[in-house]
């Protein structure tokens, strides 16, 4: 079962590695997603700056035809008040020219004279008499000959501003000031050109305008952006005019904040760009994220082969460690059931089955003992069969069974058996037979020692090797004897079979050795005998042998 355990360990390790990989992959993927969005936002901020700068330039340039318009130059030079007749004409001219700007059309278009006083303005009510903008840096610079842009908070609104000087007859006679609201239209234009982020403008803690793309499911919403305004305004980088680090939007998006370029930056006017990202809530969510091409790219054949290989390894291990040992165990049990074996061959069983076998043996022993019998049939132990060779014997009888009824006069010297080497047979090793003193003939049958097959074979070998003839006839057989021994063996085997006794462990060589040993012992005790004859007979349902010396 070692392989099975190792296999289960391998499978558990593989499962843990797989789960860990999935969890790590989830974290890595989520972090990569966040990093990717942060990088996108960094580019968005750069792109926003470029767009706003180009937008400012476009508005400045759009003022060129207005600043060069003769009617406007005349009107500014004439210093007509905004509410006066000349101012009204100038206002109409401004309106007309403003309409031509189309996308760059100003929400407020103002003409100021050389002192910065408002001469006419389009897009809001007529200015109060004498009201001016001459000290506002953008206008002051325009009146000095500079064109430029800025962002103002004007009338409670935030405007992108642009201004150009009006030059007439070689002198600066005034300036044109262009104002466009920082509104959702600009936010939408920026979002579309940046590729779909949510864009908004803020003034302190208030969102002025915003645009969330409708074709981007899950795009951050303006309220989500507004929720981060407090944190953004506390950011030292924002206060220095830099962009903030990306801020988290409820775990599903990131947003960066930046102040606008211009005066209003000091008043905390800025813009914000946000993008959403998708994270994996669980490792298994990766299956929902996978696309068809991802599935197509899987090495299906390799995975299939790996699956098959793992299955085969598991099946092989199951066969080696479960099915085959079980089959062996079952076969042995079947043998017992069929009477072909008396007990399990524990040496051939795996450890678990061996323990079960030992338990079975104990159970059988207990049951048989309770029934007054013995589980063991006599073994093919020829020593027991033949008994000790009598020293002074005219004939001896041998039989199988619990008692040995042979009339052996002399018993062989006890033989010290080596300890059993089979692990399964250790428990069943009988004690060596006690030294047999020359008993009064006839000897009583002794209980068959409880030897397993290996021990029996070993003992037979030992006995065979020790059975050296002490006289000249020892250790050989004449052709006549040979034929006799074979006949006896044949009859003995046949009778055992008839008695239902096992014969598989009975070999002629061992049988012969034992017969010779007994023959030799008899001949030693009866030197006048010419030989020994063995007779097979049945005694108490078991095969037995008799040995009788032949007279000279």
């Amino acid at each position, binding site marked *: 079962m070692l392989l099975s355990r190792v296999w289960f360990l391998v499978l558990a390790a593989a499962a843990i590695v797989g789960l860990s990989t999935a969890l790590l992959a989830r974290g890595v993927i989520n972090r990569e997603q966040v990093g990717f969005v942060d990088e996108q936002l960094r580019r968005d901020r750069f792109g926003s700056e470029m767009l*706003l*700068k180009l937008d*400012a*330039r476009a508005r*400045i340039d759009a003022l060129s035809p207005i600043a060069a318009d003769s009617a406007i130059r005349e009107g500014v030079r004439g210093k007509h008040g905004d509410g006066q007749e000349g101012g009204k004409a100038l206002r109409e001219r401004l309106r007309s020219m403003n309409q031509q700007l189309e996308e760059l059309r100003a929400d407020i278009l103002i003409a100021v004279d050389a002192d*910065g*006083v*408002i001469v006419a303005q389009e897009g809001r009510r007529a*200015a*109060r008499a*004498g*009201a*001016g*903008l*001459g*000290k*506002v*840096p*953008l*206008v002051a*610079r325009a*009146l*000095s*000959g*500079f*064109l*430029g*842009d*800025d*962002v*103002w*908070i*004007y*009338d*409670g609104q935030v405007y992108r501003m642009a201004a*150009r*000087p009006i*030059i007439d007859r*070689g*002198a*600066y006679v005034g300036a044109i000031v262009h104002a466009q609201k920082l509104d959702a239209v600009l936010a939408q234009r920026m979002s579309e050109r940046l590729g779909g982020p949510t864009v908004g403008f803020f003034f302190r803690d208030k969102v002025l305008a915003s645009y969330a793309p409708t074709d981007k499911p899950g795009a951050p919403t303006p309220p989500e952006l507004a929720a981060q305004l407090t944190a953004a305004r506390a950011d030292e980088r924002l*206060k*220095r*005019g830099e962009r903030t680090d990306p801020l988290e939007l409820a775990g599903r998006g990131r947003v960066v904040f930046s*102040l*606008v*370029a*211009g*005066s*209003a*930056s*000091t*008043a905390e006017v800025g813009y914000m760009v946000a993008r959403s990202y998708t994270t994996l809530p669980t490792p298994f969510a990766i299956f929902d994220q996978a696309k068809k091409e991802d599935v197509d790219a899987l090495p299906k054949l390799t995975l299939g082969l790996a699956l098959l290989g793992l299955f085969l390894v598991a099946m092989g291990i199951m066969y080696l460690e479960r099915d085959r040992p079980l089959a062996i165990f079952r076969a042995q049990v079947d043998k017992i059931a069929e009477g072909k074996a008396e007990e399990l061959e524990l040496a051939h069983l795996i450890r678990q089955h061996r323990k079960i076998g030992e338990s079975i043996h104990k159970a059988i022993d207990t049951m048989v003992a309770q029934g007054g019998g013995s589980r063991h049939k006599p073994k093919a132990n020829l020593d027991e069969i033949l008994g000790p060779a009598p020293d002074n014997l005219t004939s001896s009888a041998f039989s199988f069974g619990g008692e040995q009824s042979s009339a052996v006069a002399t018993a062989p010297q006890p033989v010290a058996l080596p300890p059993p080497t089979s692990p399964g047979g250790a428990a069943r090793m009988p004690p060596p037979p006690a030294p047999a003193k020359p008993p009064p003939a006839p000897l009583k049958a002794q209980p068959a020692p409880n030897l397993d097959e290996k021990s029996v074979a070993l003992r037979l070998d030992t006995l065979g090797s020790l059975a050296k003839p002490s006289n000249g006839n020892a250790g050989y057989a004449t052709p006549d004897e040979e034929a006799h021994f074979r006949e006896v063996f044949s009859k003995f085997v046949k009778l055992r079979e008839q008695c239902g006794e096992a014969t598989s462990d009975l070999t002629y060589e061992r049988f012969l050795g034992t017969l010779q040993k007994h023959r030799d012992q008899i001949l030693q005790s009866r030197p006048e005998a010419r030989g020994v004859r063995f007779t097979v007979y049945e005694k108490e349902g078991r095969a037995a042998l008799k040995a009788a010396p032949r007279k000279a």
Partner: protein
Amino acid sequence: MNRSVQSGRSAAPAVGMLLAMLVTSAATAVDVRGSVRSSEEPKSKGIEAIRAPYWQEWNGFIEPKKSSVDYPREVSAVLIGAAEMRDATSIALRDGTLLPSTIVVQHGTTLRIRNEDDFGHELYVPGLKGFDAVETSPGSTRTIQMEQTGVFELRDRLSPHVHATLHVVAKVTQVVSPNADGGFVFKDVAPGSYVVKVFRGRSEITATELEVANSKDIVLTAIALDSGAVRSKPGK
């Protein structure tokens, strides 16, 4: 007859002798005239902001106008004598900024700020109690009682370029702003001892002691703004 008064520590004895000669038996109110001048051409400033605008460039056709010191806006001349100024000090939000940007007010008096612009402002003074950011709509006037002496920065929450320096002093007789040429006049100055101070932003440019003793108008020597904040103690 106009007499000039030297300012500065070295001119004090001469001023004292001159003033003594001008004393007449009948003491009546006179005008005290003075002037400030700056020999340095102010540098053309761009838009001051945390983030500068994207574009600020010359138009390419005509040379830019040279800028000059805006005396009326930047400078305030103060006469300090026995009499106290009880009237409110009035300033204006005009042309998109505060006029003047150097404001001198006597402690305990009222500062009135009238918005003559076409758009609203939210003026405030950090650290000055009662001067929080409150909108002053076009055409309206905001009034603040000066209960704390010191030098403060007055700012606008909506228009960052709008800022001024507010000097709240213990005693003031008259406060005047120079004209575009730098000249200023303290009118109807009663005989007595005075100190003339000139402020520009946070700086007190000069402090000149003045003795008004007869009915003749007095002309002070021109005060150079570039000399820095020098306090003088002239004689009578």
